[in-house]
């Protein structure tokens, strides 16, 4: 079997759904959406908590409601989708090789492609905790699926390592389900998740958060019987003598998310070492013409609203490319300067407004300025924290005469 499409979107989480919708609304006729799971929506289906879509729709949706709203909107269009369809390869000339139970292996020739594969959780192997390998160690997202979809409680006495948002959400969820969450241990000296999740998931339920702490050993033979936690110094090394044993039957890991870019690499797309996602311009186009990327495959965002915003941009520009195979335009680099750990997008191609997503390198609890050079442009903030992405918008008009790279610096006022 061989199919053709104007725009093919890979992945139907929030980024992919929005990209497919906007590609269609921007005039692409044959939009094809490929999803490897048996239903649309991606991870939203297990994120049963509220807080989705507040900026985009001004409604406080839960994850499944937010997904359902996008799916309903999409079903009113002629976007075609295939479920249980795994993309196994993507070539730089935009030929997709996929496989599903109905058609076996097939190819799609697409005028443009949108990557929306999202991210995956960093596993235990990624953080190297010594000790035994008993049952009862799960990533927070796997535990979320157990509880919210399959209906099992992974354990009764829980320790959470890492304070990413999913870990915080799961600390609350497991507490509500009757488990005792003994604490959340974070190796950094600031939390990984959003402040509002610290407040409504931990503080609301008196779950302690220990900063500058980590799990240094897992104990137990068949099942986890406890963990040893230690304080860490400024170099994040465990401090001898600070060890403490905590009895528990479950350890949840919420130690980071990694964009899932195996397909992108296969297509020869250049990745950024700071985001682990494709280097893109403000139109979400990667270094390979006609291949766009959006959402958490580009960089891990804090909010679904941001994911959707990049999906919209990618969908619209993928439709434009499908129509006109846009000529190679010029683009300039966008550089992370002082106090900037992460910056997205990494290039500017003079097509659209430049919406910058910035993570600062360390917490700054004082008034500060975000400077965009060579423009004489500053944004003021009262504080900046690495766990809370900063979004700023620079209008296209202000950028049209720039020839040198754009640099973003954060300085204290």
């Amino acid at each position: 079997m061989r199919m053709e499409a104007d725009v093919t979107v890979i992945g139907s989480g929030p980024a992919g759904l929005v990209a497919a919708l906007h590609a269609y609304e921007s005039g692409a006729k044959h939009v094809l959406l490929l999803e490897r799971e048996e239903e649309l929506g991606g991870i939203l289906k297990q994120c049963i908590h509220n807080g989705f879509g507040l900026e985009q729709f001004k409604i406080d949706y839960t994850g499944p409601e937010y997904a359902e709203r996008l799916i309903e909107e999409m079903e009113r269009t002629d976007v075609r989708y295939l479920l249980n369809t795994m993309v196994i390869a993507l070539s730089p000339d935009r030929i997709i090789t996929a496989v599903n139970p109905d058609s076996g292996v097939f190819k799609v020739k697409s005028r443009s492609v949108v990557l929306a594969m999202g991210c995956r959780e960093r596993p235990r192997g990624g953080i190297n905790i010594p000790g035994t390998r008993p049952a009862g160690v799960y990533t927070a997202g796997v535990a979320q699926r157990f509880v919210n979809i399959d209906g099992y409680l992974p354990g009764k006495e829980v320790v959470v390592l890492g304070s990413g948002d999913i870990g915080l959400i799961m600390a609350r969820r497991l507490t509500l389900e009757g488990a005792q969450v003994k604490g959340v241990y974070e190796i950094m000296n600031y939390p990984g998740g959003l402040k509002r999740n610290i407040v409504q998931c931990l503080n609301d339920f008196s779950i302690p958060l220990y900063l500058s702490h980590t799990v240094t050993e897992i104990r137990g033979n068949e099942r986890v019987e406890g963990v040893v936690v230690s304080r860490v110094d400024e170099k994040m090394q465990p401090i001898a003598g600070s060890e403490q044993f905590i009895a528990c039957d479950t350890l949840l890991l919420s130690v980071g998310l990694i964009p899932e870019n195996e397909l992108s690499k296969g297509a020869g797309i250049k990745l950024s070492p700071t985001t682990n996602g494709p280097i893109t311009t403000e139109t979400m186009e990667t270094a390979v013409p006609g291949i766009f990327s959006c959402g958490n495959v580009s960089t891990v965002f804090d909010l679904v609203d941001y994911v959707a915003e990049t999906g919209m941009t990618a969908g619209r520009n993928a439709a434009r490319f499908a129509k006109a195979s846009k000529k190679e335009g010029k683009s300039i680099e966008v550089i992370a300067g002082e106090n900037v750990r992460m910056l997205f997008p990494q290039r500017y191609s003079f097509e659209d407004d430049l919406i910058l997503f910035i993570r600062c390198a360390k917490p700054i609890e004082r008034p500060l300025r975000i400077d965009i050079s060579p423009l004489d442009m500053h944004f003021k903030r009262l504080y900046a924290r690495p766990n809370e992405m900063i979004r700023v918008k620079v209008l296209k008009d202000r950028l049209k005469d720039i020839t040198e790279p754009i640099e973003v610096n954060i300085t204290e006022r």
Partner: protein
Amino acid sequence: MDIEKKHFTCVICPIGCEIDVELQDSNVVSIEGSKCAKGKEFVSQELKEPMRILTTTIRMKGAKWAMLPVRTDKPIPKRLLFMVMKELQNIELKAPVQMSDVIIRDIAGTGANILATRNMKKEREGKSV
């Protein structure tokens, strides 16, 4: 009279404004740090009776998945969250269910309804119908 200071993080939207409040005799004399009016409302509600939306799941028969995600349609007193969880524990629903269907009216006397937050089709012999 002594001024009592309290600190809140508004959880109404992702901005998460840090709000400082000064109280005298339990009356708010100053409130600072909220970017919008909702933050002030949030704080005065927090001082009276903290309210939260509850999201959880209910056991479901005859569908592809074992659990149906649900929510309260408005915030309920935080102190009643565990009581509501308990009431929902013993319920088992049958597919199909539509998103926004009212599953339980006026849960535990809170005045809030429990709503389904997704569609759940009925499964027969492994196929949805």
